[in-house]
């Protein structure tokens, strides 16, 4: 069945896109997160159009045709070496390894990015249909885990290629907020760099471009630059390896730090009942499933729902 973008009727001038992370999400999943976000911007009476990007259907096309276990094992081993902790390394690498596979397949990256861009275009078009020109639309994205990688890639591509009509200067498409939760972008950058020539089509892998990670922007014809994102927020937890923390220790090679970001929050995850490395390993080992994405539950440090719930007040401030 062909992938289709979500379409909504706008009642106001705002839209929020939720982008999930690793998992086998299907339309209808993460409804509670959408509810929490909606509540934080005023509940059902709020004139905010809510969208969710479900891209696993596109991922499935590739996983059923490609078998890259040997390469993924190589990537996971590199990750374990980088984590450099005999107690944590193997388990956390196995958990985090699931975010690495799009790096190995140029077609998979391009297809998910295209689905993402189509969804963004549909959002802007829905806004225009409701009488709000792109330059006056108030757009926000909240993404989690692997969804942060796809967001980073899609926004950079959109800012670079005029053919999508999503450029911040030429087309007035700017995002009021992009909120990254437990972002693996820096971790993917480090491992992709380490894998060197094993990574295909690196030229169009924005995560590895430049001296550092960056906020996408576009140069204007008459001089000056316009950023795609006004409020770039990064949130992670100090027990979340996907967000670059290995048992309360921040690893600079894995933690996403973007010059110019507006807010960076590292949330202490003390309420999860994890006080030793062994407990953390046990908690994540319970999530890992053979040949399937990990199953993350609210008691795990990587849980998206927990991130959203515990930052509901800040979401209200940013998204209001």
């Amino acid at each position: 069945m062909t992938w289709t973008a979500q379409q909504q009727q706008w009642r106001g001038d705002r839209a929020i896109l939720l982008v999930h992370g690793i998992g086998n999400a299907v339309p209808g999943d993460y409804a509670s997160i959408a509810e929490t976000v909606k509540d934080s911007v005023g509940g059902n009476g709020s004139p905010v159009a809510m969208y969710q990007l479900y891209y696993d259907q596109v991922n499935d096309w590739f996983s059923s045709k490609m078998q890259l276990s040997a390469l993924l094992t190589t990537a996971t081993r590199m990750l374990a070496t980088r984590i450099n902790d005999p107690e944590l390394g193997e388990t956390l690498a196995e958990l985090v390894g699931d975010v690495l596979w799009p790096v190995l397949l140029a077609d998979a990256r391009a297809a998910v990015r295209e689905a993402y861009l189509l969804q963004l275009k549909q959002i802007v078009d829905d806004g225009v249909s409701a009488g709000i020109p792109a330059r006056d639309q108030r757009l926000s994205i909240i993404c989690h885990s692997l969804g942060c990688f796809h967001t980073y890639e899609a926004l950079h591509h959109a800012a670079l290629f005029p053919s999508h009509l999503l450029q911040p200067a030429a087309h007035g498409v700017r995002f009021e907020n992009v909120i990254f939760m437990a972002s693996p972008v820096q971790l993917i950058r480090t491992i992709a760099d380490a894998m060197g020539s094993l990574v295909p089509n690196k030229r169009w892998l924005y995560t590895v471009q430049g001296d550092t990670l960056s906020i996408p922007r576009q140069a204007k014809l008459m001089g000056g630059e316009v950023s795609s994102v006004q409020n770039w927020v990064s949130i992670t937890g100090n027990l979340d390896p996907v967000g670059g923390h290995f048992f309360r220790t921040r690893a600079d090679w894995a933690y996403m730090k973007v010059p110019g970001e507006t807010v960076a929050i590292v949330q202490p995850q003390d309420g999860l009942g994890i006080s030793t490395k062994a407990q953390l390993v046990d908690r994540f080992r319970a999530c890992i499933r053979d040949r399937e994405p990990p199953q993350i539950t609210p008691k795990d440090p990587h849980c998206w729902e927990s991130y959203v719930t515990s930052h509901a007040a800040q979401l209200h401030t940013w998204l209001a």
Partner: protein
Amino acid sequence: MRARGVWLLRSALLVGIGACTCAGLLVAQPVTARLDSAAMANATVGTLLATAAAGDSIANLRMTSPALHARLGEMRMRLARAALHPLPLQSVATGRATFGVVLRRSGVTPNGVELAALDTLARLIEEEFRDALRPLIGRDGTRQLLTPVDAFNAALRRQSMVASREKLQRFERKYGPGAPVRNIAEVGLNYVAQWVPGFGPNAEGWPSRAELIASYVPTYLIVPREGVTAGAATVAEVGARFYLWKAGWGQSVLRPGYVSVGAVVAGARDGAMQSPFAGASRFGGFVGWGNAKVAVIGGRNARVLVTRQVQLVPWVL
């Protein structure tokens, strides 16, 4: 100068929106004025030029930003051909996507220089007018003045959405549920092929048509003829598969989603599950039309073979 700007603004709005709705437009706008869909539909190259002239005048760009004033003037000169002015911007956007088919029907086709000038003009207005005009004519006045730009960009964006859907359909044809399944050797080969021009996606994200084939096929049937009896044959295939993107293809035997071509090698003996490299090898070629494949093995023991694309053991053969 400001009076002339307001006059030009009114003119632009009159052209774009129509006199019946324009009276008092700038006098009493509701705070939440929205884009006028009729004005969007009626926006033409002429209204875009009028918008540029009005904004230039209102913001007094000749004095405040001579470089922008000059650039706008240059673009307006390039779009001076009067025949272009009544062209609806939506048709121009659609025409670009259909290589001018729509525009040729209207009898007027902008040339490459004019299309580029139109893009640049729309971009200059979007990039420079918003901040310059809002303090002068307010948010709603700016929104109305810039309606032709919004109409142009919205039409182009819809064309771009059509292109995105097409890209996704192509990816699905190549990788989705109905696509031929790769064996482990093909996974490796096609992984390496990502570095070969023509095999990976291009910069705009369009997938490549091509895919490499390297498979052991024990399911060929020998076509009987004089001196040759029907039976099974095993070959090794090396070649390429090319996906057909044409609309309506990929759904039937007559109009399949891909074709394939390549070389085959068979062993000295016919039969299922034989080694294609045992004894004196026989060489030939194959062509595929969707799932149906025909191979010809040459030499003294020439054979014509037929089979259907199928993977018996996942990832293997």
